[in-house]
């Protein structure tokens, strides 16, 4: 006779994910509809913020590389990336400069797809972008349907000022973690703070706990 665990996993493999309900757990009461994290206001614009000139990368030379802690590289060209299975996530964005934008529509490749066959013992990720920008986050925050390499926004090719040709999208953290012009991710055993994290911003950046600056 199958154990409960085996039943759940076999259902998942059949394409239906059955969540494991914890009896009697309710969590905090929460309002229906869109919720603003503390200290944020809603915008209908899509502000452009930058730490440097907009890189111009041509698609013939564009690559995305995941490098493990052992130095093993997994690379995709533009043609290879755009041939992978896509998802069309609809997500809310929260920028540390206090604006939030609801229901933004993207198309991209899930990091679960890109990471699935990679052998690693790493717990951290350092994201690199064309132009030199970096940002860091725990590897688990890239998994489980939480992150994409996005190359279309609102039905059109992602514009350079918003990070095109492709950017990282990790909407559960402040938007500075969603590195524009993404070029690669290093998987690391130790955490290495990135561009803003070393300059006073929070190492993790959870908008729901208002982790804007170091020490928050």
């Amino acid at each position, binding site marked *: 006779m199958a154990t409960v665990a085996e039943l759940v996993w076999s259902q998942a493999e059949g394409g239906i994910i059955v969540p494991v309900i914890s009896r009697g757990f309710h969590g905090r009461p929460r309002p229906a509809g869109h919720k603003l994290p503390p200290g944020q206001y809603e915008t209908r614009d899509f502000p*452009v*913020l*930058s*730490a*440097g*000139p*907009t890189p111009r990368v041509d698609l013939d030379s564009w690559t995305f590389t995941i490098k493990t802690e052992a130095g093993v590289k997994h690379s995709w060209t533009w043609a290879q990336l755009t041939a992978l299975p896509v998802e069309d996530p609809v997500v809310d964005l929260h*920028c*540390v*400069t206090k604006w939030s934008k609801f229901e933004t529509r993207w198309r991209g490749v899930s990091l679960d797809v890109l990471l699935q066959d990679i052998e690693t013992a790493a717990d951290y990720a350092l994201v690199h972008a064309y132009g*030199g920008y970096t940002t860091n986050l725990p590897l688990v925050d890239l998994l489980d349907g939480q992150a994409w390499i996005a190359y279309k926004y609102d039905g059109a090719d992602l514009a350079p*000022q918003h990070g095109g040709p492709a950017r990282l999208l990790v909407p559960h953290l402040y938007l*500075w973690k969603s590195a524009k012009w993404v070029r690669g991710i290093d998987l690391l055993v130790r955490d290495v703070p990135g*561009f*803003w994290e*070393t*300059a*006073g*911003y929070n190492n993790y950046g959870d908008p729901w706990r208002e982790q*804007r*600056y*170091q020490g928050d």
Partner: protein
Amino acid sequence: MSATPTVEDGYVDGNALAGPLAEIFAVDVTSVVGCCSGCRTSGPLARLRVYGPAPGLVARCPECDQVMLRLVQAETDAWLDLRGTLSLRIPRSQA
């Protein structure tokens, strides 16, 4: 890198540093001379290419584009990162 900044390039010049850095430095920083740790070019901070002010002020070397200065104004502290600057030369008397 183009010699003439366009709006699209998204930066302004280092005079934009004067206000924010006035909180930190006693002198007007735009006449301070900074030396880039990347290409060793020296020049007044007024010539730097400044991006921001959000999420922070980022000032880059006009020759090699390296980040020379980062300023983040958090709630209780201002964070100033100068790792891309080898040195600052500050004029002593500003009559």
